[in-house]
């Protein structure tokens, strides 16, 4: 049997609006079943990237495939779910009617359509509001309805553009659980979000985008991220600092502390042994993994003016 194509492939996708480059040479592959977080400051090009992949926006250059189909092809879209950033829907429909309409557009067979709609309504806790007009929904209710819409038809890939932007803590947990369920079913998820604490617990991999360009791409598994080490030493000389660099990177002195990045815990005893052999007293040693937020701020802060461009 032929191996299924990746959920998503992009090769040098670029989008220019007039003189403004919104996305620059985006290349990425999303394997089946992976939850991918696309992070970056406002205006970085996240939504535009998503829309290009969905065929809503035509790339200026580059190409891509969605579930093995060329971008913009209806056959790929049949197996894709999408919750847009501004979750606007036909407000004069009732919630249930809206989902039924979208299910029909997906080509869901009449038999099983109603059951599928009811299941999604329950999943997002809107069963009680199903007969109310969408116009009367609160912001969070609309967003959850949009999520239900994105889950119709057992998609193999789901795009969520800031799915929790209008949600209370309960709603955010719901989105987190839904993403987990999708992953368990082997569905790939492409997530845009500013809520890094959530990305941290839901995503397998993230990419940071800034000024339309991907500037860092990293896996989020705990064992795969660098440790940030902080030490307080008896003395700190320039040679000592230079020598420490062999155990890691970014060694710097801040007040009476020395900080550096190391690749794993096994490096810590090596550092203490080496310090002892040098006769340098070690008063304190701490190691922790920096949060996604710290990494985000670091990545974004590098020449912050590029972001404003």
């Amino acid at each position: 049997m032929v191996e299924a194509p990746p959920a998503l492939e992009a090769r040098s996708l670029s989008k220019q609006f007039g003189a403004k480059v919104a996305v620059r040479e985006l290349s990425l592959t999303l394997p089946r079943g992976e939850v991918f977080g696309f992070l970056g400051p406002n205006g970085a090009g996240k939504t535009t990237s998503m829309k290009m992949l969905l065929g809503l926006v035509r790339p200026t250059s580059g190409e891509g495939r969605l579930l093995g189909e060329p971008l913009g092809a209806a056959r790929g879209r049949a197996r894709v779910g999408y919750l847009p950033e501004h979750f606007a829907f036909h407000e004069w429909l009732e919630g249930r009617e809206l989902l039924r309409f979208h299910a029909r557009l997906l080509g869901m067979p009449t038999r099983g359509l109603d059951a599928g709609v009811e299941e999604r309504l329950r999943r997002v806790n809107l069963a009680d509001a199903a007969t109310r007009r969408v116009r009367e929904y609160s912001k969070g209710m609309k967003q959850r309805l949009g999520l239900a819409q994105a889950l119709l038809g057992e998609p193999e890939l789901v795009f969520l553009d800031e799915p929790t932007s209008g949600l209370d803590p309960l709603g955010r947990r719901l989105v987190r659980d839904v993403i987990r369920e999708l992953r368990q079913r082997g569905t790939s998820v492409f997530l845009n979000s500013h809520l890094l604490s959530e990305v941290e617990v839901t995503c397998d991999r993230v990419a940071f985008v800034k000024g339309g360009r991907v500037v860092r791409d990293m896996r989020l598994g705990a064992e795969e991220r660098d440790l940030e080490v902080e030490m307080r030493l008896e003395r700190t000389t320039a040679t000592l600092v230079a020598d420490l660099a062999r155990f890691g990177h970014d060694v710097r002195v801040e007040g009476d502390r020395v900080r550096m990045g190391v690749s794993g815990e096994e490096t810590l005893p090596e550092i203490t042994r080496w310090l002892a052999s040098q006769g340098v007293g070690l008063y304190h040693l701490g190691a922790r993994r920096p949060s996604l937020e710290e990494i985000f701020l670091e990545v974004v802060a590098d020449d912050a003016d590029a972001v404003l461009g």
Partner: protein
Amino acid sequence: MTPMRSSAEPTGGIPTQAPGRLRAVTIVAHLTFIEARRRRILAAALLFGAAFVVLFGIGLHFMARDIRANAPPAQQAMFLNLVTLTALYAANFLIVMTSVLVTIDTLAGEIGSGVIETLCTKPVSRAAVGLGKWLGCWLTFVLYALVLCGGVLAVARLVGGSTPPNAGRGILLILLEGTVLLTLALVGGTRLSSLANGVTVFGLYGLAFVGGWMEQIGTMVGNASARYIGITASLLVPSESLWQLAAYQMQPPIARDVQIGPFLTASVPSPAMVGWAIGYVLVALVVASHLFRTRDL
């Protein structure tokens, strides 16, 4: 319609469930028609359409009494016909307005609000979405036009005791006129905001209107330039000339020589105008599909 962007590559036999082209069109058309109902567009149109017919009925009742009492019998029929045509002229104007108003917002509004995003990421072509919207608006418009024209004709028959000649043909021409403008509103809606679209389509209607009159007056006074400018405008926007054709059809032969009022037909548009208008609508639909397919949403 133009085919959607090619997806003709084999995918190892993975079954897709996308709805067929025709099914997609009917789903969207149905939704658009529901929208006209839910947003009370249809109700408002039908309510005031009915009010128009009732008012015309009352007016005709008194006028018919007067005409029967005072006009020589030979002229009674012609007067009644003129009154009916006047009502149809007003109805025609309302139908034109409604055909445009029903349609200006259908694509433009959903593009503006972003509602279109979850529609166009479904496995249906944009051509099908556009055509479905056209069909939904067209059905709304036809329903309104039939109520209005049918009401006027029924009143003319019941109160005035007469029916204009070729009434069926005349009404088909009025429907075609509305269809032309409705389709133009769909074309504009693919790229313009709702308001800009409305201003543009009514602007085009105005050009055709002035052009139609230039053609008539130019013919009457024998000014060839005015006539040609008028004909050109009619070809660019074949709406007013369809009304003139309809009015010509629905006049009794003797009234055709009277040449006054809105039914003046010094220069009768060629029947080829009908073919032109139908072709025009089809081409406009293809253009709308292309403009919609090639834009960012």
